């Protein structure tokens, strides 16, 4: 009798042990499901509704989506994000690789230089944007300093020039992320077998050919990781642009994220804003999902 009751006790304890982790994880799982995935579904629904200033659940089909694609500003925003992303990813990758190669030449102050290059990554986009906005503002920063130093013909007004403003955003963003990309490439370079470089020297390859033919081809996984990280940073560049240019002058630096923000909160067009948000999510998913799939699948045999 007592034997069987202790057995029942044991099995109850085992059941408790099995349930405990699930119980502990359940609240956060519920919160994530509701606030992340729930709102994704809600936003998707809103993009097919007649919402304007407030949510309105009347189904209007693809009306908001065709208004989005007919919008002149949305066209500019897509063009801008394309120009920005391309320049940002390419510049960061090339500059980061170049800095990493230079740092890899066994120079003396490597640790210090690495830290200096890496520090901008510790700043938030808001800080970077504000600092660069001051620096490039013709009335406050570089141009004014040059004028005060006596170089009165100096002019650098890209920040307030509608044709050039997007490039100032690129400069600030590249300044911030290059050090991080450099660190990734530096780690990759350090993993390369030194004997291989010796072999190439004996084979008579000049230094630039050793890099081009032997070392850089081996950094392919680093290139992939760098591009994926930079691509999603580019799409998240909202706060940098808000701090630096506010999307202006005019619509010159509008990107999909600032477009969505202004349509949702200042133009009372919640339906269009929701459609643009869903579109951005789809683009990011198209980038990230294949990458996560290839990373999580584990090493190929």
């Amino acid at each position, binding site marked *: 009798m007592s034997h069987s009751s202790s057995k029942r006790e044991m099995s109850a304890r085992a059941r408790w042990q099995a349930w405990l982790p699930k119980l502990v994880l359940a609240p956060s799982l519920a919160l994530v499901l509701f606030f992340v995935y729930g709102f994704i579904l809600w936003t998707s629904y809103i993009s097919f509704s007649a919402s304007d200033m407030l949510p309105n659940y009347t189904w209007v089909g693809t009306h908001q989506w065709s208004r989005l694609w007919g919008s002149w500003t949305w066209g500019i925003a897509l063009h801008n994000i394309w120009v920005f992303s391309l320049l940002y990813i390419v510049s960061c990758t090339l500059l980061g690789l170049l800095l990493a190669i230079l740092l890899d030449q066994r120079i003396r102050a490597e640790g210090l230089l690495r830290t200096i290059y890496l520090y901008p990554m510790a700043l938030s986009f808001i800080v970077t944007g504000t600092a660069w906005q001051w620096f490039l503002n013709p009335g406050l920063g570089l141009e004014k300093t040059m004028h005060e130093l006596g170089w009165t013909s100096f002019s650098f007004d890209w920040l307030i020039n509608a044709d050039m403003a997007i490039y100032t955003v690129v400069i600030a963003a590249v300044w911030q992320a290059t050090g991080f990309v450099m660190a990734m490439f530096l780690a990759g370079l350090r993993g390369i*077998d030194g*004997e291989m470089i*010796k*072999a190439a*020297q*004996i*084979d008579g390859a000049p230094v630039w050919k050793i890099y081009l*033919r032997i070392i850089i081809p*081996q950094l392919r996984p680093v290139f992939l990781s760098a591009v994926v990280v930079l691509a999603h940073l580019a799409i998240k560049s909202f706060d940098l642009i808000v701090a630096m240019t506010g999307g202006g002058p005019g619509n010159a630096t509008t990107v999909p994220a600032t477009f969505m923000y202004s349509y949702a909160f200042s133009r009372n067009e919640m339906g269009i804003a929701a459609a643009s948000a869903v579109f951005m999510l789809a683009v990011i998913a198209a980038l990230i999902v294949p990458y996560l799939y290839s990373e999580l699948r584990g090493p190929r045999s």
Partner: protein
Amino acid sequence: MSFLHIDNVKKRFGDTTVLKGIDITIEKGDFLVLVGPSGCGKSTLLNMIAGLDSISEGELRLNGEVISHVHPSQRDIAMVFQSYALYPSMTVAGNIGFGLEMRKVPKPEREKAIKNVAQMLQIESLLDRKPAQLSGGQRQRVAMGRALVREPQLFLFDEPLSNLDAKLRVDMRTEIKQLHQRLKATIVYVTHDQIEAMTLATRIAVMRGGELQQLGTPHDVYDDPNNLFVAGFMGSPSMNLIEARIEKDGEELVAWVETADDRLKLPVVRDREALGAYAGRRVILGLRPEAITDSRSANHQDGIIYEAALNVEIIEPTGADLYVVTMLGGREVNARMRSGTAVEVGQSAPFAFDVARMVAFDPESEARIR
């Protein structure tokens, strides 16, 4: 006229001297093996011959030309690395042909050379594969092909077999030896494995702590070691080192060795003049395991055999031989007897000493007495 001349070469890193003046000369077609424990400077010396490490002092001459400060690619050498150092982004053919490509050899000529080498090393079927798709032994062959295709004056091998499993290592060793004999190539080969050194070399350079201990043929190094280190390092199982006392016995010179319960008298026949000065002093005798055996296996024709009955401590049959351990001068001594010799642990058995092969060392300086 020597082919490769290493003339008082030194290497310093800051205050530490890694190589303390190495002098080695070899002829064309020689197979020089640099052997020694890790940290002895053998790989540094090889890298200096290749031009991958700078020379602090001294001179290197290859075929009459001073190459001490010539760029590695201009030295007319090729090197096989321990990690093989294949270029992972290129095919096997690309790897083998890379050196020729960098030297601007025209494509048809290059392809012919790659094909010839691939044929010689039996890797023709692998030419289109990437290094990642190859086994260890195949990578080793590609690494050798990359060196062979350039037909250099001098081949350098840096522990090329140490990443292979035991069976493959023996096979590749034979193959390297065959290649050397067929191509009449001049080779400098680094290893820490004394068996590899013995089987491959025409000349062995034993190194320790940045100093050359002995340079000679495998036979010299094995039977005529310069000092205690060389005696203990070369050969497996290693040479028996036995404490003894030299004494004059009338006209004769003898070595007294303490056994478990008595003393053993061994006549001195080798290096008698030098050992005469050690009369009344302690020395360390060196005897290879095969120089202590049973009386039937002993070399009665060329050797001078002296028999004694000693207590058997341990027996270790290896199949081919029977190793019998006894105690001499307070240390275990290995005797190599014919398999099937009737000895029993704890019993006395006859041991035949070939005193013609016995060498002696000074216990203080560790140098050979001769």
